[in-house]
């Protein structure tokens, strides 16, 4: 930072210092020279004219006395000044005059020897050591006057001759003046050089100082950066972190007051979080500053850094003279931005101007602090969310426990239900047994009575008795079906696997089934592949399945056709026999087909009344198919008949065991 005024004054100061040093040094030089001149004058006097003769009587020559006394006065007084009061203008002026007087005395003592005049020139040259041409003026005047007066009145004393031109002094004075001109030039030039040296030295000093300052600044800024970096990375809470940052700003920037506000987004309010320096309390008038209010609020509003003299910033803490009293000269305020999102403001008052590197560093600090604030907030948010999550987890755990309790309850309920199902099946099994015994009697008696009525030709009774028999047989069917179903559900239905010829089985089946199909004036068509061969399965149940389907088809078809197709097929990649029973009867809706294999769900409740049947036939078909390891499917539409397809494995051992297992568990 080269600054003209301080450098100039320092140069002048240095220049004056050099001058003063030169004057004093020269004063002391002359002090020695003057004493030497005195002693030399006395010796000269003693050597040239020690005695004054008056005949044989002699006495000390007057020149000796002159050298001692007059020389003493001329030399010793300025010598004393040179030692006791060196550097003063009066001292060197006195010395200048004294040196010339000493020269005059020397010339006189040597009887006006022209060579001694060189003393005058030498002295003048010596006087030029002062680099003060003013000293030459009285010296020159003294030489001129001395020559003029002595040249007029005592030429021998000055020129060594008794008669001399009255203008000879002018010639001497002119030579002196001639020398003065060069000496004056030398003085002026010497002074100029001295001044230049002073200026160079001053500039050098300034540069050294500047460099040192810059180095100190660099060190301070590096310390600041590392201190702030440390504060930002420590795992402390937000306020502690920001307080450490402001303290670092005060310490390393040598600033007077550093503060950080954070933005409360909801309230559009800046909240003072940290303060270090002249004020450390966080409450007070600037604890909360709305955006747009005061310098802080304006920085937040405009989102640009502000650099200005400290006194232009709003009266601080209700004290208009605060900045001046505290010696604050500069103010810097930075918006704290993260990806152009404002999170706060940082302000610094300083007793020094901010250098550009300080500004750079402060801006970097502001960036770091902004990121730090954002990170702390994110951490807080994360913690809050983690807590929420933990709570949610806790709730979930509670729910899971409740759920597990419910599942346990359900298991108990299921066990109870299973026990109830078993009890029901057992009940039905024993009930059916109990029902069979009286039914046995009813059927036997009605048949017996029919035979007897036929014997006696009582035709009317026969019809009634047939109705009793028919009702009894229907009841028997019901009981048988219920018994089968309950046996399956109780897991007591076992399979009897045997090898039988499919074609033979069909032929035998048709003996029983044909009358059931044909009773509604239906046509029965049977198509069997020639290559069916034998199958290993439960013959009784296979027959029961087909009988139920054919009987069912005949029941729901009138004046139509029922077709049985038997062919080889595959089921889940294994060979099977496919039995398809197709009728041209009333058909079923989609909803009805979906429920048709459930017990007691004929297409609708009126069906049983209209078509008869137990409502259990298809349920048994489905259960038997499962038991044997096969399947049954149905396709139908209202008025378009129905097609039931049963697939039974060619070899039923394994699948029968598989299919039987769940039934037994149930």
């Amino acid at each position: 930072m080269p600054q003209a005024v301080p450098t100039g004054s320092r140069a002048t100061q240095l220049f004056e210092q050099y001058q003063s040093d030169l004057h004093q040094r020269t004063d002391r030089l002359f002090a020695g020279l003057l004493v030497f001149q005195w002693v030399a004058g006395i010796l000269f006097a003693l050597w040239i004219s020690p005695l004054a003769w008056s005949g044989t009587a002699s006495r000390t020559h007057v020149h000796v006395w002159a050298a001692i006394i007059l020389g003493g006065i001329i030399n010793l007084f300025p010598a004393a000044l040179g030692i006791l009061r060196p550097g003063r203008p009066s001292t060197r002026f006195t010395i200048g005059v004294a040196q010339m007087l000493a020269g005059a005395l020397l010339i006189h003592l040597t009887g006006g020897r022209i060579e001694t005049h060189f003393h005058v020139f030498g002295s003048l040259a010596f006087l030029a050591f002062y680099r003060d041409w003013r000293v030459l003026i009285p010296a020159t005047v003294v030489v001129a006057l001395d020559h003029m007066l002595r040249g007029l009145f005592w030429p021998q004393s000055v020129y060594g001759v008794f008669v001399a031109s009255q203008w000879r002094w002018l010639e001497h004075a002119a030579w002196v003046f001639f020398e003065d001109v060069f000496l004056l030039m030398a003085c002026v030039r010497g002074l100029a050089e001295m001044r230049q040296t002073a200026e160079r030295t001053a500039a050098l000093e300034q540069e050294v100082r500047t460099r040192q300052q810059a180095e100190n600044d660099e060190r301070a800024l590096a310390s600041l950066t590392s201190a702030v970096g440390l504060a930002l990375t420590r795992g402390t809470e937000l306020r502690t972190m920001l307080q450490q940052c402001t303290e670092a700003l005060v310490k390393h920037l040598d600033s007077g007051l550093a503060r950080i506000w954070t933005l409360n987004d909801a309230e559009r309010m800046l909240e003072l979080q940290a303060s270090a320096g002249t004020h450390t309390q966080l409450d007070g008038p600037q604890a909360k500053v709305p955006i747009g209010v005061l310098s802080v609020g304006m920085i937040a509003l405009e989102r640009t850094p502000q650099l200005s003299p400290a006194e232009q910033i709003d009266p601080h803490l209700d004290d208009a003279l605060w900045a001046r009293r505290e010696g604050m000269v500069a103010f810097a305020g930075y918006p704290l931005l993260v990806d152009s999102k404002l999170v706060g403001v940082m302000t610094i008052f300083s007793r020094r101007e901010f250098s550009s590197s300080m500004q750079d560093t402060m801006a970097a600090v502001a960036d770091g602090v902004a990121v730090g604030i954002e990170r702390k907030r994110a951490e807080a948010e994360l913690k809050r969310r983690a807590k929420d999550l933990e709570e949610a987890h806790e709730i979930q755990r509670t729910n899971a426990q409740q759920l597990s309790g419910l599942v346990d309850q359900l298991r108990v309920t299921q066990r109870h239900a299973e026990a109830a199902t078993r009890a029901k099946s057992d009940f039905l099994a024993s009930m059916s047994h109990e029902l069979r015994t009286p039914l046995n009697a009813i059927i036997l008696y009605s048949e017996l009575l029919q035979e007897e009525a036929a014997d006696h030709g009582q035709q009317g009774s026969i019809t009634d008795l047939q109705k009793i028999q028919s009702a009894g047989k229907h009841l028997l069917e019901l009981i048988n079906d219920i018994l089968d179903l309950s046996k399956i559900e109780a897991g007591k239905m076992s399979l009897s696997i045997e090898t039988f010829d499919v074609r033979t089985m069909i032929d035998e089946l048709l003996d029983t089934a044909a009358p059931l199909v044909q009773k509604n004036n239906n046509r029965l068509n049977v198509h069997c592949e020639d290559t069916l061969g034998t199958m290993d399965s439960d013959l009784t149940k296979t027959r029961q399945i087909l009988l139920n389907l054919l009987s069912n088809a005949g029941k729901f078809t009138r004046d139509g056709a029922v077709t049985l197709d038997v062919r080889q097929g595959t089921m889940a990649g294994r060979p099977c026999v496919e039995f398809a029973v197709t009728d041209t009867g009333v058909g079923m809706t989609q909803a009805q087909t979906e429920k048709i294999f459930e017990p007691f769900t004929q297409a609708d409740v009126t069906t049983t009344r209209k078509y008869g049947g137990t409502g259990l036939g298809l349920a048994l078909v489905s259960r038997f198919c499962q038991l044997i390891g096969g399947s049954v499917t149905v396709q139908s539409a209202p008025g378009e008949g129905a097609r039931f397809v049963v697939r039974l494995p060619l070899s039923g051992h394994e699948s029968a065991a598989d299919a039987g297992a769940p039934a037994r568990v149930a």
Partner: protein
Amino acid sequence: MDARGPATILVVEDNEASRDALSRRLARRGYRVELAVDGHEAVSKGRSASPDLILMDLGLPGIDGWEATRQLKGDVSTAHIPIIVLSAHAMTSDRDMALAAGGDDFDTKPVRFQQLLEKIEALLNSQVSSFNSQ
């Protein structure tokens, strides 16, 4: 059959109505019918009345049908008499147990009379053919 005169069938049945109806229907078909109401009587009648065939109900008071069948089949004087076991249970296990006890055939109640007659005739005829061969 004609050569031997009417065959005698012992009906072992504890239920009176069933016993009465079945015996009367068998009688109408020309069989001589003997009756027993429990297991003990079945065994004694089997020995004393020397029936040509026995219709044995399983659920009987005293000794049950299985035990009676076993005793009859274990006695040399009655072992040759064919026994048709009748059960209202109709469980496969019942059928197996009945046959294991020595029954010659099995049928369920309520009786499908025509079917039962076929089984009776089949057994009687096999008796006749074995008798004739002797």
